């Protein structure tokens, strides 16, 4: 609960700097000139470590410590922002002065008393890094290396990594927000090179979430990543040239949900829509996808990589229905864009760190279940592509063009999955492609916890998901005519 987090944040961020709630209140108060209608302070400390195995040896280890404070003052449409990598009162005061400088000085405005709402914690506050000793982390990586090599002699190279972040944040704002969050985030990855008859292919798999390293030991998850990476590499050793041209494409469940992230997600972020630069601008209430599509962004799913108990402006996250049965319902908002568009906040105000300004960002974005059995969907296709794993994607939110790159795909011929094909890029136009989604399966799953989303130079962890689905027509960028 927030009270507990606030206690941890106080111990970690305020007490070492000889600060307290009343000083924060004074700093925010000092920014509330008559033109300022919003001001906040964001404090953060984080510890990050990573261990990497290569050539069957754990040769690399890294440890980083970062902390700082960001201060923001908003006046109508103007925002003043300043940050410092020292959490001490003089730095805080000087940042506050810089932030308020954008507005005229004048009479002092008021701030609301702290509203310490209890927000349910979506993840553990336990330090994820310290649940295993250094020896145990190294042992785990070696186990994966051995397991991967044992599966098939074609496996020639294994790179395995484990990394974790433990972060404490505190947000205080003149609207009464005083919230803290203690955020764990762990990640494992296994990447292999398989070599047979002079041909080399890569496979990689991983996962994680807002959990501790113990997550990887449960249900043999870590071993599962090793097996999955080898499986993908071996499949690709047998892959033939991918087809070229427009055709029906069946996307598998889970990570292929990167389709939604690119085809609709970015285009529904509030800032682009306020500026009118998105292909979805001004289209609330319109049909922007087929009636089979209900797209949801939900930052409140327990322990997921893209989840947050509170966003980086102190707003509790929630389930937001973006598209319901094909009709555009909502954009994703931070406080500033919500205010400027006169829409409610949605808990999507996120920032990479104290040194970056918040903006509307996705959390866990997925397509809701439909009614079809996945096998029935494949059976319906005479000739097309079945893509089950992807690298990343990219979108031009203005024209709506998006791409995403398959890393594991198969041909579908006469309703049957036949042979594996090489990776290929798929290209489409957001609203057009979403209108061509004609069958949605009943096997919705979220990805394993590997997504990183980049926007305007800021990276944040995200999740994606979907059930098996059919797009009647997407352009597949293979080499075989």
């Amino acid at each position, binding site marked *: 609960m927030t009270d507990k987090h606030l206690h941890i944040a106080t111990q970690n961020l305020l007490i070492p700097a000889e600060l307290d709630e009343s000083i924060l209140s004074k700093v925010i108060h000092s920014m509330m000139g008559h033109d300022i209608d919003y001001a906040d302070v964001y404090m953060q400390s984080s510890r990050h470590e990573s261990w990497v195995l290569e050539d069957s040896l*754990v040769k690399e280890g890294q440890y980083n410590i970062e902390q700082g404070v960001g201060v923001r003052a908003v006046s109508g449409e103007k925002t003043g922002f300043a940050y410092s990598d020292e959490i001490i009162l003089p730095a805080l005061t000087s940042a506050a002065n810089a932030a308020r400088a954008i507005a005229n000085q004048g009479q002092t405005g008021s701030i609301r008393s702290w509203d310490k709402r209890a927000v349910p914690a979506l993840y553990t506050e336990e330090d994820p890094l310290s649940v295993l000793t250094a020896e145990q982390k190294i042992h785990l990586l070696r186990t994966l290396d051995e397991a991967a090599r044992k599966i098939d002699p074609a496996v020639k190279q294994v790179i395995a990594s484990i990394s974790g972040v433990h972060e404490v944040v505190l947000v205080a704002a003149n609207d009464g927000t005083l919230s803290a969050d203690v955020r764990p985030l762990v990640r494992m990855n296994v990447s292999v090179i398989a070599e047979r008859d002079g041909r080399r292919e890569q496979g990689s798999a991983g996962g994680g979430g807002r959990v501790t390293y113990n997550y990887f030991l449960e249900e043999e998850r870590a071993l599962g990543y090793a097996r999955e990476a080898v499986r993908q590499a071996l499949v690709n050793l047998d892959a033939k040239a991918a087809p070229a041209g427009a055709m029906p494409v069946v996307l598998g469940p889970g990570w292929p949900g990167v389709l939604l992230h690119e085809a609709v997600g970015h285009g529904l972020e509030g800032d682009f829509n306020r500026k009118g630069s998105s292909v979805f601008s001004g289209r609330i209430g319109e049909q922007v996808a087929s009636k089979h599509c209900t797209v949801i962004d939900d930052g409140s799913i327990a322990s997921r990589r893209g989840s947050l108990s509170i966003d980086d402006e102190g707003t509790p996250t929630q389930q937001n229905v973006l598209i319901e049965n094909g009709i555009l319902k909502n954009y994703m908002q931070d406080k500033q864009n919500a205010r400027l568009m006169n829409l409610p906040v949605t808990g999507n105000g996120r920032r990479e760190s104290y040194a970056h300004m918040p903006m509307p960002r996705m959390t866990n974005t997925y397509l809701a279940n439909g009614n079809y059995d996945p096998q029935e969907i494949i059976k319906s296709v005479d000739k097309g592509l079945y893509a089950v794993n992807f690298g990343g994607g*990219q979108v031009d939110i203005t024209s709506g063009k998006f791409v995403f790159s398959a890393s594991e795909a198969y041909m579908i011929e006469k309703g049957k999955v036949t042979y594996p094909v090489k990776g290929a890029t798929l290209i489409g136009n957001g609203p057009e492609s979403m209108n061509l989604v004609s069958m949605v399966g009943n096997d919705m799953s979220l990805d394993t916890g590997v997504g990183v989303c980049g926007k305007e130079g800021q990276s944040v962890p995200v999740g994606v998901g979907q059930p098996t689905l059919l797009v009647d027509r997407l352009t597949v960028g293979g080499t075989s005519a």
Partner: protein
Amino acid sequence: MNQITKKVSSEAATPLNTAELKDIVATMLNEANAKGATAAEAGLSIETGLSVTVRLGEVETVEHNRDRSFGLTVFFGKRKGSASTTDFSRQAVTDTVQAACDIARYTEEDEFAGLADKESLAMDYPDLDLNHEWQLSTEEAIEIAQQCEDTALAVDKRINNSEGGYVTTHQDYRIYANSHGFNGDYFSTRHSTGCTVIATEAERMERDYWYTVSRNPQNLDDPDYIGKMAAKRVLQRLGATQTKTQKVPVVFQAEVARGLLGHFVRAVNGSAQYRRSSFLLDKLGETIFPERIRIDERPHIKQAIGSAPFDSEGVINRAHDLVTDGVLQSYVLDSYAARRLNTTTTGNAGGVHNLFIQHDDKDLQGLLKEMGTGILVTEVMGQGVNIVTGDYSRGGTGFWVENGEIQYPIEEFTLAGNLADMYKNLALVGNDVDTRSSLCTGSWLLNEMMIAGS
């Protein structure tokens, strides 16, 4: 809307005290030595700068930044540990050294680990004239950014929205030191101006951009030129259609041809070689480009964007050929990869510095004439490049060309092939060399690629 960003820290107003910073690095190396490290290296960087963005004539952000970090790698024999921090206090320095040493207790011996050999270090390094501060007030920066955007918006009424114009000016100060006694430092600057505008026709929007970048503010292109280029590019995209699935010759405009040169660098990088994860594996001495092609690195060009006086291990970086007469002459190596491959470092720790591919005697128009009928690619999208296999499949935007003349814009197509074949199919390199990055090339004409469209 207006956003003003300002980074402040307690020493923001004071000039850099380079002696003090060198002292921090020296202290770090001494403490590592005192804790029993047999070797250590430390790097420190401080970047200060001003960035201004405007949108539709109004100031959007003004950011004064001062970002700093330093990191340490320690070796205990063949074991290695690294740590970094943004906190320059005495206590943080001590804690960081301790953290790196703690990690080195657990990592396993790597027979190739270590600093670059002492003989390879650039004990005397050149001044490359990389530091040209731009004495620019915030108001002047705003004016230049506005001029870029205003010029673009004024060109045509179909240009009716904008993602804004910008000006950035940054100065970087770096120190690299190691326990072989190397201690190098240098200042460099980087300035840039650009804008991105949106045009609408028949309810369909397109956006495009243009920018200029230089170490020396006097060499930046004029804001009016930037605005006109952005406007020209966005207007050309209006009314784009799909093209059919077919095999045709393709010209990659210089800005996107740069990516193809970049994939080559990744494939001949030492780590891709010793990991056996390159489509150009073990190709040293083999023909990988047509015979006339030469690719060479020139790390010490005065004022160039990619220049550096020494590499990020303190090693001497020299001008050398990577490809001569189409034959691969050298990998891109740091000292670790060199030891793994039983050769010597090429001074490429941290990457390549000013790579050039020899161009032919034709400009972009000449390349289109030579191509006759095919596609001019002006933008590529997505991550569909597999360095292990060379498989290439990316989204594209560009123009349909007939008889050497641009006919109409096309979009929503993919380009696919294998990079090894694409390099062998390189028919011509244009003389329209883009020197805005460390990879310098003109446009490329490739004999044939698979295009997927409607």
